[in-house]
C-alpha cells in the first residue's frame, strides 16, 4: 500500500490550471521529493494532499483511505499525516502559549494530559529543546527553536507521513543544514514517510529517494532521484539542472559574446 496515491488530480483557479491531471504514488517509509518552479502547482498539490484544498476532479488516497473533506475524516487523517509549513515558526498561533498549543493535541487525541506531557518531554529532548520552552509564547523563542517546536507538535500526533513545504526557503545556507539533518533524523527514527516540496533541486536530490518534476500543473517526469538527475529524459528537467548555479563549475566569468537566451518565460 502506498503512503499517498493520487490519480488524475485536476484543479483550476479561474483561467489557470493549477493541477492538470497529476497522478503519482508515494511509497511508505521513503522520502519523496516534489520539485518545480513557482507556479508549477507543487504547493497546490501539497495543500490537496493535506486536505486543505478541494480538487475539481481526481482522487487522493492516504494510506489507502480516500481523502474526504468531512470533519470526522479530517480528525482521523490527523493521526496519519501532518504538515511542516514553509515557515514553521508561523505555524504556531502567536497569541497562545506553546503549552496551550501542545495541550490541544491531548484534547484532539482524547489522551490524558499527563500522557501527552510525557511524550512531549521525550520529543523535546530528542529535538534538543529545553523543557522550559513550553511556558513561552512563540515570539519569545528563536527561529530555530520555533521550527523545532512546530515539528515537535506535528510529531506529537504520531503521524506516519510528514509533508514539508519548502523547508529551507528563506534560510541561510549556514542554518538550512540543521533543519535538513533534523528531518533526516526524524525520518529514520520514526520510520515515517517524508514528502518534501522544494524548488531546490540540490537538496531534493540528496534527501529524497524518489522525486517528480512539475511544471504548469503537470508532472514533467519522475522516478528514482539517481537516474532522474543523472540522465533526465525531459528537456525541461535538463534546463533546470543546467541553470542551477554551482560552485564547482566556476570557471572564467561568462562574457556576453555567446550568451544564449531563451527570451522571457511567456505569460
Amino acid at each position: 500500500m502506498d503512503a499517498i496515491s493520487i490519480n488524475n488530480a485536476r484543479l483550476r483557479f479561474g483561467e489557470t490550471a493549477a493541477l492538470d491531471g497529476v497522478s503519482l504514488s508515494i511509497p511508505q517509509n521513503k522520502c519523496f521529493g516534489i520539485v518545480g518552479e513557482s507556479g508549477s502547482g507543487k504547493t497546490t498539490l501539497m495543500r490537496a494532499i493535506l486536505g486543505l484544498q478541494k480538487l475539481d476532479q481526481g482522487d487522493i488516497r492516504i494510506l489507502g483511505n480516500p481523502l474526504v473533506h468531512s470533519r470526522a475524516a479530517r480528525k482521523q487523517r490527523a493521526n496519519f499525516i501532518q504538515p511542516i509549513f514553509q515557515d514553521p515558526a508561523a505555524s504556531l498561533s502567536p497569541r497562545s502559549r506553546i503549552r496551550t498549543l501542545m495541550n490541544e493535541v491531548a484534547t484532539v487525541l482524547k489522551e490524558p494530559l499527563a500522557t501527552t506531557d510525557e511524550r512531549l518531554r521525550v520529543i523535546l529532548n530528542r529535538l534538543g529543546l529545553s523543557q522550559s520552552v513550553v511556558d513561552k509564547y512563540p515570539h519569545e523563542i528563536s527561529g530555530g527553536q520555533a521550527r523545532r517546536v512546530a515539528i515537535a507538535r506535528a510529531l506529537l500526533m504520531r503521524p506516519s507521513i510528514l509533508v514539508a513545504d519548502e523547508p529551507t526557503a528563506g534560510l541561510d545556507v549556514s542554518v538550512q543544514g540543521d533543519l535538513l539533518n533534523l528531518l533526516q533524523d526524524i525520518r529514520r527514527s520514526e520510520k515515517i514517510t517524508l514528502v518534501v516540496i522544494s524548488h531546490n533541486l540540490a537538496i531534493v536530490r540528496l534527501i529524497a529517494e524518489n522525486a517528480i518534476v512539475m511544471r504548469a500543473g503537470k508532472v514533467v517526469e519522475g522516478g528514482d532521484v539517481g537516474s532522474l538527475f543523472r540522465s533526465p529524459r525531459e528537456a525541461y528537467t535538463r534546463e533546470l539542472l543546467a541553470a542551477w548555479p554551482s560552485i564547482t563549475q566556476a570557471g572564467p566569468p561568462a562574457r556576453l559574446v555567446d550568451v544564449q537566451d531563451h527570451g522571457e518565460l511567456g505569460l
Partner: protein
Amino acid sequence: MAISVRNLSVDYSLPHGTAHALRDVSLEIQKGELLGLVGESGSGKSTVAFALMGLLANNAKVISGTAKIDGKSFDLTKPNATAALRGRGMAMIFQDPMLSLNPVFTVGTQLCEVLRRRSPGSDRKTRIGMAEDALDKVKLSNPQRRMGQYPHELSGGMRQRVVIAMALLSEPALLIADEPTTALDVTVEAQIMREIIGLRDRIGCAVLLITHSLGLVTEYCDKLSVLYAGERLESGTVNEVQQQPGHPYTRMLFDCEVQIDRERHADASENRFTVIAGELPDTRQRPPGCIFNGRCDVSFADCAVVDPGDYPVGNDTEHSARCLRLETP
C-alpha cells in the same frame, strides 16, 4: 577607472540601542568588472548598496566612508552626497521585481522617466524610441506592446528585465544589483544574470552584485568580497578565494553550499548537511577579538581578544582576509 568605497561605517538606531551595521568596509571594483558581495542575512550587504545610493532608511546614519566614482570623490557621511549620480553615474537593480515598479504607470512611462534625467534635451518621441530599443536589448519581445503594459501584466522575470532596461538607459559607471534574482526561479535567474552581464559588456560599467548565493558569485563574478556581521572578512578574485579561502568563515560557507552534483548515499537518509553552529553576534555591542570567534572551528585564544587586521592571502596581492592565522609572525 576604478570605483572604490573606503571605510564605510553605518549605524542604525533601533528601539533598544544602536546597531553598528557596517564597520570600515572597503570595496574596489574596476570598470567592466563584476564584484560579488556575499553575505548571509544580517551581514549588512544591502546596507552597502543603499549607503552608496544615498537611499538609506531614516534611522540609518553613515558614520564614515568615501566613494570614488569616475574620478570624483564623495563624502558619504553627507546627506544626499551621491544624489547627483543617481540615474546618471549609478544605477540599481532591486531584489523584488514585483514591487520595484510603480503599478499604476505603464512600463513605457517609467522608462521614459529615466530618460528625462539621463538625456534632458530629448523629445518624447526620441525617448520612446530609446526605451523601446532598451527593451529590445534586454530581450523583451514586442517592445512596442510592452511599453503600453502595466507591471502587473508582466511576469517577474520580465519586470526585472524592465528594471535592467532602466539601468541600461541610464548608462551608469556603477551598476548595483541587490539580490536581483532571489525572488526568481532558477531558470529565470540564469537569464537575468546573463542580461546583467550583457549590460556590463555593452556600457562597460562596474557591477556590484549583492547576493547570498555563492553559486551565483562563482559562476558569474570576477571578484568576491565576503561580508559577515558588518565586516568584510575576505576579498579576492573568485578563483583565488575558492581555491584557497583565507578565512575559516569563507571556507565553511563554501562547505555549506549544497552542490547539485554532490556524491550521495544510496540510502538518502544517510546524507548529511553541513552547518555553521552558533548565531550572529550582536552588532549593538561588538565583542572584542575576531567577529567570527565563537563559531569558528579553528579559533585559538588570541581570537577572542585581538581584532585581526586585513592580511594578504597567498601570493595574489588582491586576495586578503581578516584572520589571525594569516598573521605572519
